């Protein structure tokens, strides 16, 4: 069984003595999984198993070393072939190395030690490569559409549809949405589901880079291009070559820099600061902003030509408050993830907690929800997360309530809830403050239109 650490080795050798010796010797390392073949044909028939290493006797009876090497490289190009030859022939060795052999070892007294060292050297490469592949797969899985953006609401389903269209082509994508809606996540998902997924995804937050440094950051610079430019440095455009460049907060870009970006996008070429050399670029661009770029165009703070150049396929991410029950689906997902990562028992939301989440407008969107849920997971000692564990900011509760479209009845419920929260669920006090009958509030509690915390529920007879 091949595990993450194991190295699969094929010994292709017709000399039973020598192959047995190699087998015994290499099996001293328990991580080596070894198979012996006494003919080239038998070994080639098993190449679909993709061995990490093939030790190949140059003089096999059924095929020449050249022929075997060529066929191994065709059927399993990643396998490293170490040729073991009875003759020290520099010309043959060079020829085989040119054809892709990893090493050439002469069958002498030191051959097995040379082989051992050769495998140790290439093992590091194999492990690094395997680690890289695993990481790439993990990243790919993480940014799979169904994992990256959670939700069933019609508005988010429409977003999924747009993302799928974007992933199939190289079209520029502009992602808009309030802060915390997951614009970068959308950009990454598009990249990791596109044909460019094997290449780099490079994200640049344009708001975080001083405008004087932005040109060098994006296009790179030559040594001595400006004070402090101690060496040549490639910019984000070149770094993301054949991959995706995500320009976040594009609305914050200086108007002069906008002209340079437009030129780079139009001509598909850049010039490093301090250089005259034109560098061709093949980069997929995704931009994002929380600003209204069209408004900025009208105000003259954003170039119209750049606006149309980057508009491409627009994806507008809806705020959480417009995503109906998605808040609960996302909360559940975040809870599971957090508990798993922190080895906490799985938790669930009580009805009261769900209502509290649904009532909140989440101006910070998913980012805010994540922070609320993670804190609640830590604060709740029991399996259940109750309303009291949800530290929903009430600083702008009125604003939150007004942000959401709702019916008069829903607004009424929210106001009553707001006052109940504020006055520690003292129904009489709330009734006095709002000038409504206390029985009205009790009825709303019974109808589960508003909720009170458990402590209160325990003390009152009408709950349950």
């Amino acid at each position: 069984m091949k595990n993450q650490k194991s190295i699969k080795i094929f010994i292709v050798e017709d000399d039973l003595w020598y192959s047995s010796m190699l087998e015994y010797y290499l099996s001293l390392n328990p991580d080596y999984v070894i198979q012996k073949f006494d003919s080239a044909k038998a070994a080639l028939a098993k190449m679909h198993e993709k061995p990490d290493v093939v030790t190949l006797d140059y003089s096999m009876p059924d095929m020449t070393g050249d022929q075997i090497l060529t066929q191994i490289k065709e059927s399993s190009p990643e396998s490293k072939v170490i040729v073991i030859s009875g003759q020290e022939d520099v010309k043959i060795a060079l020829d085989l190395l040119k054809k892709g052999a990893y090493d050439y070892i002469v069958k002498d007294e030191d051959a097995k030690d040379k082989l051992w060292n050769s495998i140790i050297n290439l093992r590091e490469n194999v492990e690094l490569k395997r680690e890289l592949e695993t990481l790439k797969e993990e990243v790919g899985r993480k940014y799979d559409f169904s994992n990256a953006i959670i939700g069933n609401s019609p508005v988010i389903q429409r977003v999924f549809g747009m993302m799928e269209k974007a992933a199939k082509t190289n079209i520029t994508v502009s992602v808009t949405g309030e802060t915390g809606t997951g614009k970068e996540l959308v950009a990454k998902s598009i990249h990791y589901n596109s044909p460019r997924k094997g290449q780099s995804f490079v994200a640049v937050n344009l708001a975080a880079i001083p405008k004087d440094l932005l040109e060098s950051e994006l296009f790179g610079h030559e040594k001595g291009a400006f004070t402090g430019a101690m060496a040549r440095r490639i910019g984000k455009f070149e770094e993301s070559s054949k991959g995706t460049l995500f320009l976040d907060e594009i609305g914050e870009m200086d108007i002069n820099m906008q002209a340079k970006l437009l030129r780079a996008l139009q001509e598909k070429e850049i010039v490093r600061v301090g250089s005259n050399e034109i560098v061709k670029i093949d980069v997929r661009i995704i931009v994002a902003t929380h600003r209204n770029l069209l408004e900025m165009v009208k105000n003259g703070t954003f170039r119209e030509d750049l606006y149309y150049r980057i508009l491409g396929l627009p994806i507008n991410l809806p705020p959480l408050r417009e995503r109906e029950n998605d808040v609960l689906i996302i909360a559940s997902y975040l809870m599971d993830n957090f508990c798993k990562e922190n080895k906490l028992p799985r938790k669930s939301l009580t009805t009261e907690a769900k209502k509290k989440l649904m009532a909140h407008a989440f101006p910070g969107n998913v980012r805010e929800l994540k922070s609320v849920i993670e804190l609640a997971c830590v604060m709740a000692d029991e399996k259940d997360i109750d309303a009291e564990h949800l530290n929903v900011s009430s600083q702008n509760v009125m604003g939150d309530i007004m942000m959401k479209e709702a019916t008069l009845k829903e607004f009424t419920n929210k106001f009553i809830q707001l006052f109940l929260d504020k006055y520690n669920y003292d129904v009489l006090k709330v009734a006095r403050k709002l000038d409504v009958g206390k029985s009205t509030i009790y009825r709303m509690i019974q109808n589960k239109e508003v909720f009170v915390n458990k402590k209160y529920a325990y003390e009152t007879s009408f709950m349950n």
Partner: protein
Amino acid sequence: MISTRSSVSNEKLYNFDQLKDMYPGNEGFLKHFASIFLKITPSDCSEMMAATLSGDWQKVSKYAHKMKSTIDSMNITSIKTEIRTVEMDAKNKTSTSSLLKVAQKIEKVIYEVSLQVKEDYNL
């Protein structure tokens, strides 16, 4: 052809030092290789001799090449040079007239080594 056990040399003609380095103190391991030697090398040697007698130099070179790594691994020092001479001369078809004599020496040593191996490992 040599066919008796009476010519066993008193001198030890081989050793398993290389193998002992790999698995110190593992007699089973050494016995396994002793068996492989007995199974393959005397027979390869006979093939080489027959090919030498019939002048099939390609075959001679092939068997000499095959035996070479075993001879090296078992430190059969008395024929290390000879096996290379046979391999190369047969391959290049040079000095073939003297190859029979060298091949006979190899055959004699291999025969004696096989007797020693049988005795040492009760095979």
